[in-house]
């Protein structure tokens, strides 16, 4: 048994999929020129007052319900006061005392073990603006640039209980959380666009101890893989500190992806947020009916869909897990299944070729041009013997890139197998006529000579013949 146990809790910030900000009608669109999506409210100009976005409340409740939380029907907003340039008002409007959703859970599978991870709370808050540091790092920059386009974008913060024990569990938790939020339409959950961000609180303690050690908060992890690596590094680091007889310092640390280490950040003033109830925004009172209506909008979630793919279509559980880990993949699979009946074959192509190409190019499914109907037609062409499996992969790569129908690609590139027996027989007769020596060798018992003859036929057909068929036709002819 390990001498130490890691105690890990995750705080995940997720941008809600609204058109406008939490308290004003400014656009939430990503990637626009700095300070072009702002107004007096999200700039915190004196005298401005915001009004709460209804859609944000609905999406936050939906997130809470999908995560098996209880909804607080009496909920409100609070002020968290601190000075930082990304926060134009000098305070953030968030939910401190009565978050919209509490006490949920989600089920994960990591390192071959099933585990239920409890969720402490889901609360709504506004995103601060975005800071860009002149020299790339806050530590060395003479100045920073502030863009308030993100200021006031609606977020939910989802706080897990400190029940995760390893980097792998944390990664599995994030993957499941991402899938649930994608399925429910709560968020785009794109880490690369910052619509999902994760901080990790990490401490270690002697195994079996019930006392929590001093924790470090790790920031700046830009992928799920980075979260796993940062946790693994930090747990090792803290164990080494304890082994040397020192104690862990409670602090904020930043993950350095290129070096693969966490580093202490210079800490700000001792923060006392002086939280109090926000008086500019009216409290929210939800009815039980409203909550039930919201519950009814929750679609089939990843775990249920996974079970259904196993039960109804006979997919192996592993395949079903991969396919349901993303809504777009699951929808692609089921749409293909409407036009082609072999579920396992579809799943092989999705998990093989499709994911391979997506991963190799760092693309999302929506960015590729291949369609479910296209994949179904391709599989039918292979079944009919028009093209080989190997050629199918080449055709698929073209479909992925250009999105055309497989029949068309096969025709244009002359990829179809010559299965026309008469045409093939002509070519075989020609090859036999031109190669009397290998023919004689084969007929006198030199079995390997057939390989040469098959090769010659394949060459003559530019690889479009089916080698198996060529082999048997050659044997038939030479046996005469």
């Amino acid at each position, binding site marked *: 048994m390990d001498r130490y146990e890691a105690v890990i809790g995750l705080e995940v910030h997720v941008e809600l999929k*609204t*058109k*406008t900000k939490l308290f*004003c*009608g*400014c*656009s939430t669109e990503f990637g626009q*020129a*700095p*300070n*072009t*999506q*702002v*107004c*007096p409210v999200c*700039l915190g100009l004196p005298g401005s007052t915001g*009004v*709460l*976005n*209804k*859609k*944000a*409340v609905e999406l936050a409740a939906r997130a809470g319900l999908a995560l098996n939380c209880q909804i607080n029907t009496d909920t*409100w907003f609070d002020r968290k*006061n601190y*000075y*930082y*340039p990304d926060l134009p008002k000098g305070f953030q409007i968030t939910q401190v005392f009565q978050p919209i959703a509490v006490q949920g859970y989600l089920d994960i599978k990591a390192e071959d073990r099933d585990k239920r991870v409890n969720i402490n709370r889901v609360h709504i808050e506004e995103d601060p603006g975005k*800071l*860009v540091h002149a020299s790339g790092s*806050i*530590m060395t*920059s*003479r*100045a*920073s*640039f*502030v*863009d*308030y386009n993100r200021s006031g974008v609606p977020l939910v913060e989802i706080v897990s209980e400190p029940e995760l024990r390893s980097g792998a569990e944390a990664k599995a938790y994030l993957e499941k959380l991402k899938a649930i939020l994608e399925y429910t339409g709560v968020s785009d959950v794109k880490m690369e666009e910052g619509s999902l961000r994760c901080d990790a609180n990490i401490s270690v303690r002697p195994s079996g101890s019930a006392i929590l050690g001093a924790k470090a908060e790790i920031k700046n992890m830009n992928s799920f893989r980075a979260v796993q690596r940062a946790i693994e590094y930090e747990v090792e680091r803290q164990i080494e500190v304890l082994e040397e007889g020192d104690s862990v310092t409670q602090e904020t640390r930043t993950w350095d992806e290129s070096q693969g280490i966490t580093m202490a*950040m*210079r800490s*700000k003033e001792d923060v*006392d947020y*002086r939280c109090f*109830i926000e*008086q500019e*925004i*009216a*409290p*929210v*009172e939800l009815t039980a009916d409203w909550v039930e209506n919201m519950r009814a909008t929750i679609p089939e979630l990843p775990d249920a869909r996974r079970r259904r793919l196993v039960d109804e279509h006979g997919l192996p559980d592993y395949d079903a897990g991969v396919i349901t880990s993303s809504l777009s993949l699951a929808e692609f699979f089921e749409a293909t299944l409407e036009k082609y009946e072999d579920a396992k074959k579809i799943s092989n192509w999705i998990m093989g070729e499709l994911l391979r190409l997506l991963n190799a190019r760092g693309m999302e499914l929506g960015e590729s041009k291949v369609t479910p109907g296209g994949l179904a037609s391709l599989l039918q062409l292979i079944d009919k013997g028009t093209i080989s499996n190997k050629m199918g992969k080449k055709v698929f790569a073209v479909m992925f890139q250009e999105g055309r129908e497989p029949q068309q690609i096969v025709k244009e590139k002359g990829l179809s197998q010559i299965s026309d027996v008469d045409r093939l027989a002509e070519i075989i007769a020609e090859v036999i006529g031109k190669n009397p020596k290998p023919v004689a060798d084969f007929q006198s018992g030199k079995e390997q000579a057939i390989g040469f003859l098959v090769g010659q036929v394949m060459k003559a057909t530019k690889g479009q013949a089916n080698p198996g068929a060529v082999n048997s036709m050659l044997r038939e002819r030479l046996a005469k």
Partner: protein
Amino acid sequence: MQISGKDVGQLAFLSRLDLTADDLTICTKSLNEILGYLTVLEELDTGAVKPALHVRPIKNVLREDALQPGLEREQVLANGPEVEDGAFVVPRIV
């Protein structure tokens, strides 16, 4: 309730006010006087009054998720003491 000069010093720091020692003494004295006025409230029996969540008796003030025009960038940046490439420039943070 009384607050100390140290409390007021902390308050001044949080409010980014640069107070001299004399200012601090004056502020501490006047803040304590103001707090003194409020002790009147403590004489009221509020045992039967439900704690107020909000100063106004309102709830569920919500808007639809519809776009509203914001400000032109020139207007936005007009208040910035230093501006570069469409962004506000702030001095070194840490």
